[in-house]
């Protein structure tokens, strides 16, 4: 399967980065991530229900204070284009006992988001970079962290 690399700013628009968000619960945070994907024109509203379903069955907490809420296989039909949103919760959100400060909402029907998720994975494996992401207060800082260092990460095999 061939993979096209979507420019970072197309995938994660500056308007889709919220660095001072507040959520009262995990569900609230997931709904906010869904609302941001909806505002970005990436999904139909029904995808937000799929995100909540997925979260209820299997948490998307990935460690280092980061969760990556996304929909289910069935919810994929509600995705219009590959897009990500990033919400930062400076006060943290209780995510089944884990504290989440960064929620990255994902809508994907293709592979345009794979390079960005690969980069996110490498950030999370380096504690100081993960801390920098949690503490990012400018969109520029977010982009600098998420800009792919190498482009050979074809996670599709």
């Amino acid at each position: 399967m061939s993979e096209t690399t979507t420019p970072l700013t197309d995938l994660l628009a500056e308007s889709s980065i919220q660095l001072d968000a507040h959520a009262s619960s995990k569900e609230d945070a997931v709904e906010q991530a869904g609302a941001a994907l909806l505002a970005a024109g990436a999904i139909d509203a029904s995808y937000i229900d799929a995100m909540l379903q997925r979260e209820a069955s299997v948490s998307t907490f990935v460690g280092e204070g980061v969760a990556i809420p996304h929909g289910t296989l069935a919810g994929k039909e509600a995705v219009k284009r590959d897009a990500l949103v990033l919400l930062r919760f400076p006060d943290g959100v209780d995510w089944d006992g884990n504290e989440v400060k960064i929620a990255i909402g994902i809508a994907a029907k293709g592979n345009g988001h794979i390079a960005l998720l690969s980069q996110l994975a490498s950030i999370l494996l380096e504690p100081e970079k993960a801390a920098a992401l949690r503490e990012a207060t400018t969109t520029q800082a977010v982009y600098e962290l998420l800009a792919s260092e190498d482009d050979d990460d074809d996670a599709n095999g």
Partner: protein
Amino acid sequence: MATLDGSSVKKLIVACDAGMGSSVMLASTLKKQLKGNDVIVEHSPVATIPQDADVVVTQASLADRARGVVPNVPVVPFNLFLGDPAVTRVVKAIQSGDSIEV
């Protein structure tokens, strides 16, 4: 329980429900760790795990579904996306060519 022969693993599948998020991240991490071991690492929705997989790693809550899809393939459940000991064991077995019980 099943025995996984690390030296015979040519294709490792990371499975999750949608194949959209978490499995993508773990697959990219494992791909980096197994660079040079001649192993294909792919992510897949659990419902469509390829039958020619040699080992499947998946979230604990999806392990039974995965075993139903590929009954003859060792399935390794994990709980943590980053640094789960079960996944680390599989990586080490592939790197060293050792056999482990999974």
